């Protein structure tokens, strides 16, 4: 049967011929196509050797037993071997088919398993979703329960507090009741005792009144018998009092009402007038305002009406109209004011801005000015130094000048004060002098009289001495006074004079006073002198300083002079 085998071979060859992935080709078509065409394509009479070699190759690759012998060149095909080979191939094919089946089975299983898993997954996801939702629901419920718990706790607290309060109240009430009970019990006991006492007491002391004489009634009238008439009169009195009280109250309330109504009408009038004026100012809301004006005209009419009706104090309608109209006007006014405010704010802000800009400009100008000034100053300063010294000198001179002037002023002031004092003292001294002269004249007259009288044979030795001493004292006083007045323009002068005028009898004390007063002079003089020295250092130009020096020197001399004088007199 080599033909059949050849045919089979050819068939196989046809199957295995073709494109490189031959296995694939063979696996994909499990059934061998029994086309005669394919028989011819692989193996033909011409390419037998190639086909054979190819098949050999393939078989060897498949590790099947070789079916040819390789002894001769024309390789003889061992039919048995070929058949075995074919059988092996068939077995192989069957095996592969089986494995394919198994694999397909496996694949089916796996796919079903995967499907199963997928469905499980979706189920589980759904379950998870459901459980999540349930969880949130439970959380919500928990929260609500918490809130409820809190509210319940607070209400519990409230209730507890309430209970506590009520307990306190009941305890205080119980306390009060107990106290009351005890009090009544005590009273009852007292009553019992009293009753016993009264029952036991034989002597019942009756109530008595003992008047020296009956008094007249307070109002002087005679008392009346109690009759129905009097009772009726009392009732009448009572009602009259009540009525008068009500009338008074009603009158007061009516007055108050009138006042308030007047005020309200005034307010309304003013509001209407304000709104009218606003209407002129605001042009945008003309229409509205026109409408309002007509309304306000109506209001005015109403005003007139209500004034007519003011006589009827109990007219409710007028009252209501008035209050309603006022309310309306007030609302309109309020809205207007609000609008104006918002506009005004803008205006204000605009104005403020303008102001700010102006001020800023001014500031800038001033700054520029200052800068130019500074430049000029610097330029001036940077000029040669001798100018500086000259200016400094000038400044120094100016200062000196100033100081001098102030000192002069001070001295002048002092001198003026002194002169004032002097004048006063002069006047005082003059007055005193006149007094003393008068006294002196009197004394003289007395003395003369005395003298005349003493011309009698018995002359009194005592009197003239006394008189002499008094007048002598007066003379010394006037002398010293005049001396002081003329020569010492100083403070202590007045002190001296006053001292003198006081102490008439004792000269020693007065001289002590004088000395103490005079002691003031050297001290003052020294301080002044120091000042003058200071001036001397600075001002060589001044003439007044040496003059002043001279003045003080003179005063010093005078003081020493007077001291010596006094010493001499003492």
């Amino acid at each position: 049967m080599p033909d059949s085998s050849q045919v089979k071979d050819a068939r196989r060859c046809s199957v295995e011929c073709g494109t490189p992935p031959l296995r694939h080709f063979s696996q994909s078509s499990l059934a061998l196509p029994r086309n005669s065409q394919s028989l011819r394509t692989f193996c033909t009479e011409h390419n037998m050797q190639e086909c054979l070699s190819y098949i050999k190759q393939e078989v060897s690759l498949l590790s099947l037993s070789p079916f040819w012998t390789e002894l001769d060149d024309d390789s003889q095909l061992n039919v048995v071997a070929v058949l075995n080979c074919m059988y092996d191939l068939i077995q192989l094919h069957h095996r592969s088919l089986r494995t394919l089946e198994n694999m397909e089975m496996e694949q089916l299983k796996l796919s079903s398993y995967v499907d199963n898993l997928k469905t499980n997954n979706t189920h589980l996801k759904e379950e998870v979703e459901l459980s999540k939702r349930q969880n949130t629901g439970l959380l919500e419920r928990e929260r609500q329960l918490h809130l409820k718990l809190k509210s319940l706790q607070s209400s519990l607290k409230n209730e507890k507090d309430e209970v506590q309060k009520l307990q306190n109240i009941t305890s205080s009430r119980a306390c009060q009741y107990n106290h009351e009970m005890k009090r009544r019990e005590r009273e009852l006991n007292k009553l019992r005792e009293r009753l016993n006492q009264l029952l036991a007491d034989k002597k019942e002391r009756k109530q008595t009144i003992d008047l020296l004489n009956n008094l007249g009634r307070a109002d002087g009238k005679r008392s009346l018998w109690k009759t129905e008439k009097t009772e009726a009169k009392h009732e009448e009195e009572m009602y009259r009092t009540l009525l008068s009280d009500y009338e008074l109250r009603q009158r007061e309330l009516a007055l108050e009402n009138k006042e308030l109504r007047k005020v309200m009408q005034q307010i309304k009038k003013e509001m209407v007038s304000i709104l009218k004026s606003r209407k002129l100012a605001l042009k945008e809301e003309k229409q509205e305002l026109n409408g309002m004006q007509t309304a306000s005209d109506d209001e005015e009419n109403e005003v007139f009406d209500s004034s007519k009706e003011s006589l009827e104090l109990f007219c409710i309608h007028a009252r209501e109209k008035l209050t309603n109209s006022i309310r309306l006007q007030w609302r309109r006014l309020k809205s207007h004011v609000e609008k104006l405010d918002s506009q005004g704010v803008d205006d204000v802000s605009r104005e403020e801005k303008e102001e700010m800009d102006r001020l800023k400009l001014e500031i800038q100008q001033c700054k520029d000015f200052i800068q130019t000034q500074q430049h000029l100053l610097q330029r001036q300063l940077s000029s040669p130094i001798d100018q500086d010294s000259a200016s400094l000198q000038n400044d120094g001179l100016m200062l000196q000048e100033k100081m001098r002037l102030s000192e002069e002023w001070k001295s002048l002031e002092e001198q003026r004060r002194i002169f004032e004092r002097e004048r006063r003292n002069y006047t005082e001294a003059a007055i005193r002098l006149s007094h003393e002269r008068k006294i002196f004249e009197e004394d003289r007259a007395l003395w003369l009289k005395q003298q005349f009288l003493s011309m009698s044979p018995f002359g009194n030795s005592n009197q003239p001495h006394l008189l002499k001493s008094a007048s002598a004292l007066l003379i010394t006083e006037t002398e010293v006074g005049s001396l002081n007045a003329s020569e010492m323009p100083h403070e202590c002068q007045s002190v001296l004079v006053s001292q003198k005028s006081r102490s008439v009898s004792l000269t020693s004390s007065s001289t002590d006073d004088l000395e103490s007063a005079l002691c003031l002079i050297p001290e003052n003089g020294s301080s002044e002198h120091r000042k003058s020295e200071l001036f001397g250092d600075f001002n060589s130009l001044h003439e007044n300083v040496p003059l002043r020096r001279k003045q003080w020197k003179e005063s010093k001399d005078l003081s020493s002079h007077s001291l010596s004088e006094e010493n001499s007199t003492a």
Partner: protein
Amino acid sequence: MNFSEVFKQSNQLCKVSPDGKYLATCVQYRLVVRDISTLQILQLYTCLDQVSHMEWSSDSLFILCAMYKRGLVQVWSLEQPDWHCKIDEGSIGLVSSRWSPDGRHILNTTEFHLRITVWSLCTKAVSYIKYPKACQKGIDFSTDGSYMALAERRDCKDCISIFVCDDWHLLRHFETETQDLAGLEWSPNGCVLAVWDSCLEYKVLLYSLDGRLLSTYSAYEWSLGVKSVSWSPSSQFLAIGSYDEKVRILNHITWKKIVQFEHPAVIENTKATVYKEVEKRPAEVRDEFSLHNVTMDSTLFSTQSKYEICSLPVQIPAVKPDPDRANPKIGVSVLAFSSDSRYLATKNDNMPTAIWVWDMQKMSLEAVLEHTLSVRCFLWDPCRPRLALCTGNSKLYLWSPGGCVSVQVPVEGDFQVQSLKWHCNGDSVILLGKEQLCLCYMDTEQEEKLNS
């Protein structure tokens, strides 16, 4: 400010006559009548026993002296010192005695409040009023003296009888809606009678003169209620002080509450001035003279004090009352309107050192005066808005809208001012100590300074 010398008195019995000319004091069993300006003794009467109660008649001609233990009442005449009158209640006893408004009748309440005996001094006639109620204030005469309201208790119910004082004719008798009537008071215009319940129930009833119930007011239930009630002199307001430390003001038109004044322990958010009494060491002598700081020469051992203005918030010291005792020391116990109804002075019992002054025009707190000791007595000047108060030490305190002043009473020895009374023309104050009294004459100049 001038102070008179010290005189003796007993039992705090010292009263100025209604016409303001005489001063009557009781010293043990003697009655001394002095002229108010010179304080010279004009009359001296001797009673049979120690005097428990003394009262001038309305026409200033007679003085009533009651001796409760003995059950005697003696009446003395100023014009006729020889005239005498003695009322002996006998075995029935005497608990209280008073004049009628016409000055010719004497009302004696017997022991256990069995009855009220009305004695006429014109006719020696006697009338009896049965079942008077024994309460805080069971009897009140209207201001013009024409009517008398009396609280009674019959068949376990409270009722009120209104009598005409002319002839003691019973005008009206009606039951009240109270559980246990505690007091009644006529309004100053004599047309409305305010009636309040005991502290166990907060209830204030307003009756018209003819017995109609005008209105009922109750602020709250169950807690302790009304402690004190006062009419304003213009009859416009009725002030009710209660145990909850508040004062409620009712108006006379609607009888509804118009405002409520509270007494908190911490004062803040108010325009009122808080004056605090500050004590200084005795050695210091202040030479300054300012509105808030006037001190007179004092003895070496007494401390000088002055008022200082405290800045808010201020804490008022409060004393917590004993919860187990009845009638606890808490709540507004004293209310006093000034004569022009402009100011109301209140005292809260658990803050006993402070006096609160309220302005009735603004309906707000005007001033708080805090002292070192508990305030014992405070009264308004009958003519002007000036408040005098005392705290049991030797000082007199005065407040007026212009400022306040603490004045040391320049009396040798220990003179502690326990209570005080104003003279009816407001020019002097009578200071009562334990056993002594002293008059203080107000200086009009200083008063102007205070008011400026």
